């Protein structure tokens, strides 16, 4: 006799609604010869059973109830704090934390006031668009206008962790508590959000591979994406995607890196390479970190959904665009191809279309994709003879939707 093996956790768990639990309770009472048909609203036993059914249904909630707790025991099903507990205890891999955005301001005192020495955290700067606030990380001196200390270059740090503290160059334009002091915002303030569940799960999976002498690919990925292992001691990594390709003829292993929103900048490659050399590089191998570059693309689509989705047109557009951006930023460096080997791949147009419909499943029933009209090719070249190492990731630029909300009607 053959036995089917469940492939999804949901196949192992029977989740009941509050109505089902209440109905089952009533049925059980009736089987004990209790006449329940006389019970009315407010009657004690009926309300007791109803309240208990409500509480029990909460325990069966897939997001916070025992399905989530059970899922917390399995990498791939664990989410949120249960994933933290599992990955930390079983894989010794804490979640990469959110970072506080830092940047540099030039402060110019246009008044006759001598501010003297300003202690750490005593200057409050603000991005007037996002209302994110920042404080100075060290003390500095700001003297009166015309004097030798009338201009100071100050490093500030966001008060909020993660991308909430991000600001582009020029966006921070005022200091709140120093009237008469003008601000020149010199460098961008990039803050990283805490690692999301998807990236965290993938990284934890790489932990075992990193322990294997036969798994340098996984080892590269694990050490480069783990904030606490960074060779420079910064405790920060912007790398979320790694694609390592070895060449036994030359004893070289090139690994391309990219971030959660596309290509990264030069210092990331230096930090990644140093980290690999420290933690993962096998003997007799030279590892080379290379930044993946970006290939931009736009999406134009027309979507038909039933009104059962219960969202406005704008909400649907936002939902789809968010799903597209998230999914695009999770595609592997060099794209996907039908063989899965280390040759150039694509962002498949069909894949893009699927992301759109899945974002609003099961309410969508038709999607026309105008752009990309064809599969988007991504480069992946490893040529040690000519010293050419290039790879690309896709960057989604604009999304142009046309949404049709169609009445579904009763009884269908």
């Amino acid at each position, binding site marked *: 006799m053959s036995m089917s093996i469940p492939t999804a956790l949901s196949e192992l768990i029977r989740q009941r609604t509050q109505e089902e639990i209440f109905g089952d309770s009533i049925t059980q009472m009736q089987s004990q010869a209790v006449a329940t048909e006389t019970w009315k609203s407010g009657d004690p*036993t009926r309300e007791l059973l109803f309240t208990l059914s409500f509480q029990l249904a909460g325990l069966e909630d897939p997001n916070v109830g025992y399905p989530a707790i059970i899922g917390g025991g399995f990498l791939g099903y664990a989410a949120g704090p249960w994933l933290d507990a599992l990955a930390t205890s079983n894989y010794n891999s804490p979640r990469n934390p959110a970072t506080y955005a830092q940047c540099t301001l030039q402060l110019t005192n246009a008044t006759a006031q001598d501010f003297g020495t300003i202690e750490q955290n005593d200057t409050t700067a603000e991005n007037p668009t996002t209302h994110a606030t920042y404080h100075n990380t060290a003390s500095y001196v700001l003297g009166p206008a015309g004097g030798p200390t009338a201009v100071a270059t100050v490093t500030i740090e966001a008060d909020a962790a993660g991308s909430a503290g991000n600001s582009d160059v020029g966006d921070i334009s005022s200091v709140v508590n120093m009237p008469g002091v003008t601000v020149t915002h010199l460098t961008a303030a990039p803050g990283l959000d805490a690692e999301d569940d998807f990236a965290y799960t993938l990284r934890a999976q790489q932990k075992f591979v990193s322990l294997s002498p036969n798994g340098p690919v996984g080892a590269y990925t694990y050490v480069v994406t783990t904030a606490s292992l960074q060779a420079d001691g910064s405790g920060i990594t912007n790398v979320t995607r790694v694609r390592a390709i070895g060449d036994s003829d030359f004893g070289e292993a090139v690994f391309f890196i990219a971030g959660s929103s596309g290509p990264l900048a030069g210092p990331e490659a230096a930090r990644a390479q140093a980290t690999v050399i420290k933690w993962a590089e096998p003997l007799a191998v030279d590892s080379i970190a290379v930044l993946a570059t970006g290939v931009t693309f736009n999406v134009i689509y027309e979507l038909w959904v039933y009104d059962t989705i219960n969202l406005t047109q704008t909400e649907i557009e936002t939902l789809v665009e968010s799903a597209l951006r998230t999914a695009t930023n999770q595609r592997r460096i060099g794209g996907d191809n039908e063989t899965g080997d280390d040759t150039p791949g694509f962002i498949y147009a069909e894949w893009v279309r699927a992301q759109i419909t899945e974002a609003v499943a099961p309410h969508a029933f038709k999607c026309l994709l105008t752009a990309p009209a064809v599969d988007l090719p991504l480069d992946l070249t490893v040529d040690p003879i000519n010293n050419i190492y290039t790879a690309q990731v896709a960057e989604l630029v604009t999304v142009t939707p046309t949404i049709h909300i169609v009445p579904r009607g009763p009884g269908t």
Partner: protein
Amino acid sequence: MSTPLQAPPFGRDTSATDQVRYGVIVSGPRLVAESIFRLLRTPKGQLLSDPFWGESLADRLGSDFSQADADTLPSQLEAAIEKDDRIDSVTVTSTLSKVGATALLLKLTIAATLSDGSSFSMVVAYQDLTVTLLELTFGGVTS
């Protein structure tokens, strides 16, 4: 499934007025009377299983509650109580008085005849957000 026992009129349930009395089972007009009392002490929207159930007046007894308000209550409550199909007819009278300088005391006297011909009467008092069952009588006998 076994056959349910012969149920008394209006079934059986645990006694509950201002608190649940576990192990005390009531039936007949007492069961209905307790149900009506709970109706009168439950604010609408508080019952998890039926947010439209409940007729508590306690939160209305503020400083702006007047005799005119009290005079409109009987007909409103009679209509609400008669929605219960166990009630054949009901008469509600109200008395509003002052307690001390500002506190109000509202007394409701409820006399109901049930669908099986039995009856009960009760006196319910509202004061300072508290609802109290002052008296419960079946066929002229005070319980």
